[in-house]
C-alpha cells in the first residue's frame, strides 16, 4: 500500500498534476509574501532595538525571543478573532482568504526576523561602533549601513523565517479554512488528504514541500558561502 502510494505520488509529480501545482503555487505565494512583509517590518525593528537604548528594551527583547516560539494555533486564533465578522477588522472581509493566511504567517515570522536580526546587528555594531562614532554617524544613519553589512547573516535569518512560514499548518488552517482552489496550501492539504486516506496526494505534497525547502536552503547556503568567501 505504502509503496503504491509512493508510486502514485511520483506520477502525480511527474505528470505535473494541475490541482497539485495549484496548491504548491498558492503555498509559495502566501509564504513568500508573508516573509517579505515580515522582513520589511522585522529587520528595521530588530536593528532599532539593537541600536537604541530605551525603557523597556530588555522586556522587548525577552518578548521578541519568546514569540519566536509562538504556537501557530494561538497566532491563528488571534488573527481569526481580529478578522472574523464580529472582530475589529471584520469589515475587511479578509477571513478565509489568502490575505488572512499571509497576515497569520506574518505574525509568526515577524518575531523570528526581528529577534534574530537584533542579535546579528548588535554583534556587528560592537565591531563597527567606534568607527561609526568617528565618522559622526547618527544612530538612524547607522541602521541602513548595519543592515546591509549584515546581509549574509540576514539571509540565513530570512530562511529561518521562510521555513517557519511554509511548514506551518495550524494558523493557516484556522484563518484560511483550507478551501479547495482558494486557500488550500500544501500543509493543510496534507492534513486533509491524510485524513481522507488519500495517501498518494498527501505524500506527493509532502515530497514537494520537503524538496522546496531543501532547494531554497541549498541555494541560500551556496550564495552565502560563495559571497562570504569573496567578501570576507
Amino acid at each position, binding site marked *: 500500500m505504502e509503496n503504491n502510494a509512493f508510486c502514485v505520488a511520483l506520477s502525480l509529480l511527474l505528470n505535473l498534476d494541475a490541482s497539485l501545482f495549484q496548491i504548491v503555487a498558492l503555498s509559495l505565494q502566501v509564504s513568500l509574501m508573508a516573509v517579505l512583509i515580515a522582513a520589511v517590518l522585522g529587520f528595521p525593528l530588530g536593528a532599532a532595538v539593537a541600536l537604541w537604548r530605551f525603557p523597556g528594551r530588555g522586556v522587548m527583547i525577552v518578548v521578541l525571543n519568546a514569540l519566536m516560539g509562538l504556537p501557530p494555533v494561538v497566532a491563528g486564533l488571534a488573527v481569526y478573532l481580529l478578522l472574523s465578522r464580529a472582530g475589529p477588522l471584520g469589515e475587511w472581509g479578509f477571513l478565509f482568504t489568502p490575505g488572512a493566511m499571509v497576515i497569520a504567517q506574518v505574525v509568526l515570522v515577524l518575531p523570528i526576523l526581528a529577534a534574530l536580526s537584533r542579535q546579528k546587528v548588535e554583534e556587528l555594531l560592537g565591531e563597527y561602533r567606534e568607527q561609526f562614532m568617528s565618522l559622526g554617524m547618527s544612530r538612524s544613519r547607522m541602521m541602513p*549601513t548595519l543592515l546591509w553589512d549584515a546581509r549574509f547573516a540576514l539571509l540565513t535569518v530570512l530562511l529561518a523565517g521562510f521555513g517557519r512560514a511554509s511548514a506551518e499548518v495550524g494558523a493557516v488552517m484556522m484563518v484560511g479554512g483550507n478551501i479547495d482552489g482558494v486557500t488550500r496550501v500544501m500543509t493543510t492539504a496534507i492534513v486533509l488528504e491524510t485524513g481522507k486516506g488519500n495517501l498518494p496526494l498527501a505524500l506527493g505534497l509532502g515530497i514537494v514541500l520537503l524538496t522546496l525547502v531543501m532547494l531554497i536552503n541549498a541555494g541560500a547556503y551556496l550564495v552565502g558561502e560563495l559571497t562570504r568567501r569573496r567578501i570576507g
Partner: protein
Amino acid sequence: MTSFNVPLLASAALLPPPTLRFDGVAFNQQGKALLGPCSFTLDGTGPTLVMGPNGAGKSLLLRLAHGLLSPTQGQVAWSRGGRPRQAMVFQQPVLLRRSALANLVHALAVNNVPRKTRTQIACEALEHFGLTSCTNTPARVLSGGEQQRLALARAWVLSPQVLFLDEPTSALDPAAIKGVEAAVRKFHQRGTRIVMTTHDLHQARRLAGDVLFLSGGKVCEHTPADVFFNRPVSREAQAFIAGELVG
C-alpha cells in the same frame, strides 16, 4: 603639495591646523583612575607622537581627544571655537563588508558629499594611496597593509583638520609600515594636525615633530622630538629611551 581635490573645504590646507588643549582632563572607570588629570596644548606643527609603555593611557588619550569618550573631569578644547573636522585610524582598521571603493563612497555619503562627486573623489583617493588595483576588491580580503592604507584613504576623503592614529602599524610588516608612514606624511603636508600613538621608537624618530610621553596615566613630558630623543627631561622618558622597563 599635491593637486588632489579637497572635497569638503578647499581652504583646509591654508589655515594652520587647529590647536588641541586638554584642561585637567581625567578619565575614571568604576572608581579607578585610568588617565590624568592631564593638561597640555598641542599647538606646534607636529606630527605629535604619543608614546609610553603599554597601559600608559595612550589610546585612552586619543579617544578622549577625538570625542569617542567623554572625560570624567576637565575638558577637551579646540582653538577656533567648535570641534574641527577630524578622523581616526584604528590599530585594527574597521572596514565595511563591501569593496574598497564602496567603503570610501560610504564615508562620503555619511558626510553629505553630493552623490555625483563621490565616486570620483573616492577613485582619486584610492589612486593617491596606491590602491587603484584594489578598487573593486572586497575591503576585508585586502592585506593588512592595504587595509590600513584604505582606512587612511577613507580619512583622506573626509579632509580632516585633525587626524588621530592609534598604533596604526603595530600589526604590519616593514614594507607595509613604510606605506602607512608615507600616507601619514601626506596628511601632514596637507596641513592636517597629526596625533599618533606608537611604542616603536624608530618610527617615532622618523615621524615626530613633538612627543607627548605618558606613563601610568600621567603626562610625563611634552617636548620637541630632538629634545625628547637626545635629552629627555623626565626620568620615565630617560628610562624608556634607554630601553628600560618603565613601571
